[in-house]
């Protein structure tokens, strides 16, 4: 996509522009974006299969059983990884969807920033909640054993 506000002193013609594009890859952060989308997808594949089967295992469990399940170190770690990498992959993906359909620049930026904001905060809260409960259960179990 040729950006309207593309400005570079060294670019004086369309031929220059094409040379520039050929030599420098993407105009913005496209390459990193692409790579992260693939890297996260590889790990997510395993995590999603794990989570799907884990859900079947605990789907009828009472709240306290699920808390204990979430607090097991392996499960805490995998849940944090799923939420963390999932949110990165989802934000990268949703940004492409927004960029494709929203051509109004300020609306596009508003939606992009809302996306980062909502997923950033939600991700942070979820990770903190998992760590908190994991710590609580560990301390409780240690107190019971000791």
């Amino acid at each position, binding site marked *: 996509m*040729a*950006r*309207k506000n*593309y*400005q*570079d*002193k060294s*670019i*004086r*013609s*369309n031929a*220059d*522009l094409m040379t520039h594009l050929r030599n420098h890859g993407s105009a913005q952060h496209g390459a990193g974006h692409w790579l992260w989308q*693939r890297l996260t*997808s*590889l790990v997510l*594949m395993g995590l*999603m*299969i794990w*989570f*799907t*089967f884990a859900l*079947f*295992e*605990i789907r*009828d*469990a009472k*709240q306290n*059983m*699920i*808390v204990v399940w*979430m607090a097991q170190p392996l499960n805490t770690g995998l*849940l944090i990884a*799923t*939420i963390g990498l*999932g*949110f990165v992959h*989802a934000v990268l*993906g*949703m940004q492409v*969807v927004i960029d494709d359909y929203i051509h109004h620049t300020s609306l596009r930026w508003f939606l992009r920033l809302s996306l980062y904001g909502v997923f950033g905060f*939600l*991700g942070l*809260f*979820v990770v903190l*909640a*998992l760590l*908190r*409960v994991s710590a609580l259960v560990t301390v409780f179990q240690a107190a019971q054993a000791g």
Partner: protein
Amino acid sequence: MPKTKSSISEPAEGAVRTVHPRPLSPHISRYGWSVTMATSICHRMTGVFLTAGLVMMGWWILAVTSLQEDRFAEFYGFLHSPLGKLLILGWRFSIAFHICNGIRHLIWDIGYGFKPSSARSGSIIVIIASILLTAILYWVTFMRWFPLD
């Protein structure tokens, strides 16, 4: 020389460009649906739907870890409502489809499968595989392969 502003639609001053009518493609109204178009748009729709699923997963974790029964009941109440059940059906299919088609994307990324015929057969394989996987996920749920004992 004035400040140059380059873009494809505005050629720089003095640039010679012959303008002649080109065939308009893709011309939406002259396009028929193909199976590759269906899988392509489906990857996007399942991706967006899975994003909502991830938010749902976040809500689930927050509800459970709040250690408050009413938060938990609220969440499971929603999950067991007709809308919740419909969403769960959608997520089963979305997980299956997005993973199958995601693998196809990754195969493209390492440079295989670009012939029109392989693109078409790949699409068909992905559709069949993801419907089968969705059915298997259902079966696993109903047969309770993994009861909590």
